[in-house]
């Protein structure tokens, strides 16, 4: 119901309609980063869930008696072999243990003088019905020194961290939306009072409220789209830059940041969403204001 090409109100000459796109550009820039963050975090959580969720570690504390250690290890391995739904298990050898410990004891240490626990990396079959608690109980009964670490505590903390950050990012998105709405409401109200005279004339010659609102809405949509595209143009390189820097931290817990087509489409849709938000905000603002006219 609105005509973008021809307007009865000189909205395009308003000073505030020159700064609105830049405000919106800034909002969209932040929104792109926040939304990108949410997508990365979601992907990270999913990867961690897959990568760590299917494994557990059995740890056998070292005793003073090496033969007992050996017996304990054999018993645990037997027990794992007889347990269903276990895909694989592998004792972590000394060389790898030393590599894991390198940050603490330094390179070139010897195992001989250090009582190291035995670690067994266990892979659980996907979709299996293995009860970790039952396994833990049986192990404890057979070998008191054995402990099962299903990474749950560690994982839960990470997931909670990710969820918190995701929540914050979502809150930022919500704030951005609110700020955009507020800005558009303010701009629209300014426009309404600047063009009060012309609007009254339109009203008196029989313009429907929707006709007048359509002019503001069409204008807000254009400005929103313009600002949104500027924001996207600035936000995309920033997002790719962050992804590149994160990608260079190889071997860390951070998974590679790579978006699929769907994710890119969602990010590219942000300017459209902001534009639609600006349009409907302007429309509602004008309609509410006009409802006060007789």
């Amino acid at each position, binding site marked *: 119901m609105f005509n973008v090409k021809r307007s*009865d109100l*000189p909205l395009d*000459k308003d000073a505030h309609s020159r700064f609105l796109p830049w405000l919106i550009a800034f909002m969209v820039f932040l929104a792109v980063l926040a939304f990108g963050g949410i997508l990365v975090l979601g992907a990270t959580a999913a990867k961690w869930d897959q990568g760590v969720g299917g494994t557990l570690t059995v740890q056998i504390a070292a005793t003073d008696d090496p033969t007992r250690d050996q017996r304990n290890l054999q018993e645990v391995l037997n027990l794992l072999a007889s347990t269903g739904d276990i895909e694989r298990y592998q004792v972590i050898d000394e060389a790898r243990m030393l590599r894991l410990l390198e940050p603490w004891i330094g390179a070139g240490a010897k195992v001989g003088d250090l009582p190291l626990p035995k670690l067994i990396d266990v892979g659980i079959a996907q979709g299996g019905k293995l009860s970790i608690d039952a396994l833990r109980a049986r192990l404890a009964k057979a070998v008191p020194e054995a402990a099962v670490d299903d990474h749950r505590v560690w994982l839960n903390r990470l997931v909670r961290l990710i969820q918190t950050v995701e929540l914050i990012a979502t809150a930022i998105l919500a704030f951005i939306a609110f700020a955009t709405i507020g800005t558009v409401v303010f701009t629209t109200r300014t426009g309404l009072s600047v063009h009060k*005279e*012309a609007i*009254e*004339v*339109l*009203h*008196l*010659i*029989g*313009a*429907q*409220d929707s*006709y007048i609102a359509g002019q503001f809405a069409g204008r807000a949509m254009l400005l929103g789209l313009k600002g949104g595209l500027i924001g996207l143009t600035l936000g995309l390189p920033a997002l790719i830059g962050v992804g590149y820097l994160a990608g260079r931290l190889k071997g860390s817990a951070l998974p590679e940041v790579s978006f699929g087509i769907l994710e890119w489409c969602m990010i590219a849709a942000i300017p459209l969403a902001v534009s639609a938000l600006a349009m409907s905000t302007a429309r509602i603002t004008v309609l509410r204001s006009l*409802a006060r006219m*007789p």
Partner: protein
Amino acid sequence: MRRETIRVQLQGDDSIARFENVGLRYGLGPEVLQDVSFSLPASSFHFLVGDSGAGKSSLLRLMYLALKPSRGLISLFGRDIQTTPRRDLPAVRRQIGVVFQEFRLLNHLSTFDNVALPLRVAGVKEADVTRHVVELLEWVGLKDHLKARPPTLSGGQQQRVSIARAVIARPKILLADEPTGNVDDRMALRLMHLFEELNRLGTTIVIATHNMALVERLGRPAMRISDGRLSVIPGTRGGEPKRESRESPPSRAAVPKPPRPAAGGAATDEADPPGIENFL
């Protein structure tokens, strides 16, 4: 006889505009208009006179629905305005042409676009808009100023643009507030002839003016507002051009008459007793 007239006017909706006991106050101030009652038959021509500040503009504003009355009943084209839903009012407004006192042309739009506004808000196709607007601007002698912005036009030209905008959508009633306010007498008379021409084509006309010489010259009936009350000065040319024999000019005694005993027919529906006899 009088009772019959009332019934005719209440039921047979040939009245274009009808006011019953309309009162208007701004905020908590005193009543600017008091007990204003009249009925304008279709195709009638009336002046609206009174000292400045007497309430001429207020009355016109009520008629073109820029104001709501504080009390009383207004009906236009047979529709009670108070009970008309707000979304239906634009359709009513499109049947009212208004020549505003200060023209109220949109300065950022060309002459053409200003005159085209009423058609555009009514959703008329752009091809028809162009045809009608050009035709009308030709008729009011502004064909060479289609693209001019109002500030570059003279007062008289702006006036004609404003009149063109008021009549482009063929309104049933034309309301003009001091249309001769800032033009010379010769131009004023020309404008009056324009209004008479429109009236001859069937448009009901109400012109607010303080130019009594003009009123006398045209010999049309006038509604006079003083102290917020309405009285009627009959025209020398008779009441209404087309219904002289049956219709009487809208009238209201300057001093309210005492309420008559309950009138029969539709009149008994009226809650406010003093209003009825004012239709005369």
